[in-house]
Every structure is written in structure tokens, then in C-alpha cells.
């Protein structure tokens, strides 16, 4: 017993030394991703554990994330070792990121299209793609009995979705379509990447077109059958699990919990299609090193580690973001991954698929860009204002933002000379 105690004490002492010694050289991984506390913990315990050296994984919301980064860049020295964020997060600070082209990823094949995105239109690899995701629809299996005859979930349209939600609302007596319209919900992404492209084939140029008016009127129609609590939802997995909502749209990472907790209860399916196609938004997250990183070599080693196939699979399990490298997924994946895989394939591979990229080239005007869509939603759908009038006003705001950023068009809008026009 005594020797046991002594051994334990020795181990504790050694551990405290190890921790104390390591404190000085640990890499601060400053990220806007994997923010829910369970995901953050999994990133620390399961994903970053295998790295040679301690990593301090810290998350922040986009605003504070950027504010701290900019403060460090302005000061000319910093503690942030590695940055994790979405494509849009990096476009603001591109000039202050270390070129990662020389990072040795050890024969791993990284998605070329995403790598090109990571160059932010320069000759340098500003960020390395890290993981990817998209948005999907999810439905409680109880909702399937009300599906209008002849509707195939894999090729569903907005009209069919409205009809389906209407039937459910009438048959069950309460609206059961759910939409993440809360302040922390990703409502703006739905309008930018799904509703607009599906009806107008555009995100920016046709912002106030007659097609856009149709889109908003359709959404107003759908809103009648939408759970009014939607303006409080951030993540759709909770209302899906509680049964408050039967059909929902959200980011895969914000739906995953529902599928993992009750694998038998839900189905995942592609986003609906409109007259112009099946608009959807792929999401790319990346890792980058700020020029003020205290130990650039160590940070580069961490970049390479994040792209290893094992790390990518661990990341998928932890965050529900899919790998960006060629990797064969093992069989023991969570239920959400098994459900989402085919739905994503059906959506991206559909004949009418219309990928719409995240807003690009806006720099720190990204928030204002999103606000244009959120404001339109709040005024048209919640406030009941006239669609045409609101779109005219918001189009002016949108044009001012795009002109200020001098952002050229991105998909699905046609490439432009100079700032993307708002017709």
C-alpha cells in the first residue's frame, strides 16, 4: 500500500512538472469552430491529444475572435499560435497570414478546389482547408406519413415542402416546420445560399428581381406553417429532439445531436429546389497561422497534424464536419454521419444542384452583408412589410456594402469586372 501511495505521489509530481514545463511552449489554437462546449472538449480530448506537444484549444465567437486577432496583429506580437475559422473569417486578415504552401502534409491528398479557395486570390496558401460541411433538411419520421403523394425526399421542391408543412399543421393542429431564426441561428445562410439561388440563380445580382420577390412570398407562405418559436432557435437539434418541430433546416453540425441521440427517429434529406435549381451552400473551414504566432514551426506542424487522415476522422466524430482529404471512413461512425453522407451526396450530385459559395471578398463587411438578408427577413416575414419596398431599400444597402468592399461576384453569380452589380 505504501509503495503504491509513493508511486502515485511520484506520478502526480512528475505530471505537475510535465504540465508546468509544457505551459511555456503550448500552441494556442484560436478558433471560431467547434464552439458548443461538448465539441470544444472533444477537440481537446480526442482530436488534439495525439499531437506532439500540448495544444490549448480555445474558441470564440466571430466578433471577439477577430477583435483579439486584430489587436495582436496591431501590437505586432501575439500569443495566438494557430487560427481556425471559416473561409469568410480569414478573408479579412489575409495579408497577415503566413504562407503555408511549404507545409509538408506527408502525401495526404487535400481537396484541390478548397486549397485554391485557401489562397484567397493570392499566390500564397493563406489558409489550409481543415474540414467541410453544409446544410441539410431533417425530418422526424412521424412527419413522413403526411408527405404529399408522389413526393421524393431526395428531389423535393419548395412548393412541395410548403404543401407538406401545411398538411402537417392542419392534421396535427400546430405548425411543425422549424427554422433557425434566432439571433444565434444561421438564418442568413439559408437566404443567401438556399432560397435566393433556388429562385433567382443568384445571391447578389438579382437581389431585388421579381424572382426574388417570388422567393420571399414563398417563404412567407412557408412561415405560416413554421413554429413561431423559430425566432428563438439557434440549433435545430433541440426542437427536433423535443418534438416541437418535425421538419427543419440547419447546418449539419447543428442537426447531428438529434441523429446521434435518437438514430431511429430522423431522416436527413437534401435542401429543396426552386425554379432556378437546388441552391445549397458548401462550408469550408481552414487553419491559418498569423504572422504574430509565437512559434511558427510548431504551428506548421500542427497544421500538418490536422490534415492527417486519423485526425480528420477524429475531427469528423468530434464536430460533424467532414474531411477535406482523401480518406476512407471507418464503419464505427456516429449515426449522424451515416445519415448525412447519403443526403449530402444526393444534394451535391443532383442534376439541378446549384452550389452557392459563402460570401467572398467582403473582408470585415461580412457581418453587414449577412445583416442585409436578416433585416429583409425580419422586415418582410416578421414585420409584414411590403416585399417590393423592403427589397428596394435593402438592395441599396447591399450595393453600398459590395461597392465598399469592391467584391467581385462569386458563385452562383456570374463573374464580374469590378464590384458585383446589384441590378
Amino acid at each position, binding site marked *: 500500500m505504501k509503495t503504491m501511495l509513493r508511486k502515485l505521489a511520484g506520478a502526480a509530481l512528475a505530471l505537475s512538472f510535465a504540465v508546468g514545463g509544457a505551459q511555456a511552449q503550448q500552441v494556442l489554437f484560436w478558433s471560431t469552430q467547434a464552439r458548443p462546449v461538448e465539441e470544444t472538449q472533444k477537440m481537446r480530448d480526442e482530436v488534439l491529444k495525439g499531437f506532439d506537444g500540448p495544444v490549448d484549444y480555445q474558441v470564440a*465567437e*466571430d*466578433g*471577439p475572435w*477577430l*477583435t483579439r486577432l486584430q489587436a495582436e496583429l496591431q501590437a505586432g506580437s501575439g500569443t495566438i499560435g494557430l487560427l481556425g475559422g471559416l473561409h469568410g473569417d480569414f478573408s479579412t486578415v489575409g495579408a497577415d497570414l503566413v504562407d503555408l504552401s511549404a507545409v509538408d502534409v506527408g502525401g495526404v491528398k487535400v481537396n484541390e478546389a478548397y486549397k485554391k479557395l485557401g489562397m484567397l486570390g493570392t499566390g500564397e496558401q493563406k489558409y489550409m482547408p481543415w474540414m467541410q460541411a453544409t446544410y441539410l433538411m431533417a425530418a422526424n419520421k412521424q412527419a413522413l406519413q403526411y408527405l404529399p403523394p408522389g413526393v421524393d425526399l431526395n428531389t423535393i421542391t419548395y412548393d412541395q415542402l410548403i404543401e407538406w408543412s401545411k398538411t402537417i399543421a392542419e392534421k396535427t393542429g*400546430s405548425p411543425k416546420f422549424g427554422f433557425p431564426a*434566432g*439571433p444565434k441561428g444561421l438564418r442568413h445562410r439559408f437566404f443567401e445560399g438556399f432560397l435566393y439561388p433556388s429562385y433567382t440563380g443568384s445571391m447578389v445580382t438579382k437581389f431585388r428581381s421579381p424572382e426574388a420577390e417570388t422567393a420571399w412570398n414563398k417563404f412567407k407562405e412557408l412561415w405560416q406553417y413554421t413554429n*413561431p*418559436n423559430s*425566432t*428563438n432557435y439557434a440549433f435545430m437539434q433541440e426542437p427536433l429532439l*423535443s418534438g*416541437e418541430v418535425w421538419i427543419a433546416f440547419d447546418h449539419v453540425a447543428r442537426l447531428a445531436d438529434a441523429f446521434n441521440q435518437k438514430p431511429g427517429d430522423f431522416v436527413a434529406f437534401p435542401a429543396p429546389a426552386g425554379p432556378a435549381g437546388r441552391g445549397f451552400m458548401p462550408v469550408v473551414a481552414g487553419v491559418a497561422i498569423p504572422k504574430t504566432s509565437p512559434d511558427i514551426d510548431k504551428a506548421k506542424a500542427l497544421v500538418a497534424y490536422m490534415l492527417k487522415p486519423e485526425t480528420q476522422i477524429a475531427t469528423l466524430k468530434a464536430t460533424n464536419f467532414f474531411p477535406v482529404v482523401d480518406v476512407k471512413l471507418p464503419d464505427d461512425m456516429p449515426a449522424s454521419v451515416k445519415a448525412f453522407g447519403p443526403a449530402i451526396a444526393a444534394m451535391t450530385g443532383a442534376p439541378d444542384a446549384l452550389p452557392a459559395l459563402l460570401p467572398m471578398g467582403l473582408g*470585415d*463587411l*461580412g*457581418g*453587414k452583408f*449577412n*445583416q442585409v438578408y436578416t*433585416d429583409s427577413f*425580419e*422586415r418582410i416575414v*416578421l414585420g409584414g412589410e411590403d416585399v417590393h419596398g423592403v427589397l428596394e*431599400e435593402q438592395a441599396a444597402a447591399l450595393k453600398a456594402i459590395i461597392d465598399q468592399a469592391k467584391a467581385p461576384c462569386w458563385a452562383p453569380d456570374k463573374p464580374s469586372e469590378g464590384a458585383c452589380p446589384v441590378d
Partner: protein
Amino acid sequence: MNGKALPYLLLMPATLFLCVFFLYPFVLVAFEAVTRDGAFTFDNFRTMAGSWKFPATVRNTLLLAAIVVPIQLAMALLMASIVSRLETGRSAALYIFAIPLGISDLAAGLIWLAIFDQSGFLNTLLSGLGIVDRPIMFLGYQSKLTIFIAVALAEIWRASAIMMVILVAGMGLIPKEYYEAAEVFGAGPWKRFVRITLPLLRPSLQTAIILRVILAFEVFAVVAALGGTNLPVLMGETYNWQFTLQDRNVAAASALLILAISIGFTLFFLRVLRVPKEARI
């Protein structure tokens, strides 16, 4: 040591602290509010006031202050009177009344969210009693009035105690002789309260009201927890400009507006509730 210098020396740390952590940042913020890309301009204020949400934020903030503060004042006076009159258990009552003070405003918002939420305590109670068959949505976007009431309730519950603490201290300063004299002349409790307590409490009332009014203009976390963006207030919009819209200049302008309103009301109450030097106890 020179006795005359001592007070100033003792004030030094606090003054330094204020200069470094209040005055200096304030100057920076004021500077940001009236410049854009280095040039002097009032555009930031124009942008702020031109936003379609701005009238609603000002209205909500003022309305909230106008409703919450008087109710809090009445409650604080009541609580302070009870506490001051108690013979035994005075500190126990004081502690119990002051419990909400120990809770952060976000936590207070979350507590009331747990009550008013669709699956919250109130709905559980109502359906348990058979009054409603399906949960009522108190905090939806269509029910701005209930959101407002919930926010007001949470604010009243959370922050009345701070006024009470100030008023209890003020009541303790009022000499007992006045009350004894009033009793001799047959003044009832209400008359004593109106004729003695209230006038002599004026300095404390002034402090308490100013403090609460300023805090009312800074209401943020409770509203964020209960109303999200359904009930926009000034402070929330300031946060929005800074962090969501990444526009520091407009956020600074918005912060200055809150400061200006606060200073305006402070001056107003200083004037209205001023106590002439001769009348102080």
C-alpha cells in the same frame, strides 16, 4: 507626513484607475465615434440613426426605463421600510431581499427564461392545473408585449435590491427624534413616511435613482436572454454594431449616445432632487 496631502494621496490610486480604465478609453471611443478612416465626420451617428431598427431600440430602452425604475423605486422603498422597522431578524430580511444582487444579469435572464419558456415552469404549471391544453408561447416574435413584461419583471426582480440597500443606509441616518416628535403630535405611519422619511431620504433617493436609471439604459443581458432580437434595445444594438457588423465607429457612436442619455438623466435628477446645503442632516 504632511496631513494636508494625505487625502489626495489616498485618492490617488482610485483617480489613476479611473484615468487609465475610464477616461482614456472614453477619449478613444469618443474619437472613434466622430472619425472614419482618420477623417472627422458625423457619418457614424447618421448611420446609427438611419438604421431601420434605431427608432425601436430607443423607444424600447426608454420605455423599459420609464416602467421599470418607478416600480423598483416603490418596491425598494417598501422593502427598505420593512427592513428598517424590524426589531429582530433585520439582517436576515436584508440578506434575503439582497439575494438577487448576487446573480449576474445574464443568469437572471436565464432564470426568467426557464419560467417563461415554452417548456418552462409557468407552462408546466398552467397545463398541470388544466388551465391550458398546449403550452403558450410567451416569448415568440408575435408577443412583444409579453417579452417586454418578462424583461421588466426580470429587471425588477434582479435590481430592486440595489436601490433597497442604498435606501436602508439612508433611513438609518434619519434621527429617531423626528419620528418621536411626529408621534407625539399624532402623525400616523403614512404621514410619518411622507412627511419625514421621504424628504430626509432625498440624498439617498437621488443616488439610488441615478444609479438605477443609468443601469436601465445599459440593460442588455436580460433582454438578450429573454427576447433575443425581438426586443431591440440600445445596448444590444451597440453590441451588434461592434461584433456582428464589425463597425467600431458606429458602435462607438452608439455608446456615446447611451452615455449622453445617461448624463442627461443624471443631471435631471441631480437638479430635481437636489438638497440645499442648509437642509442636509
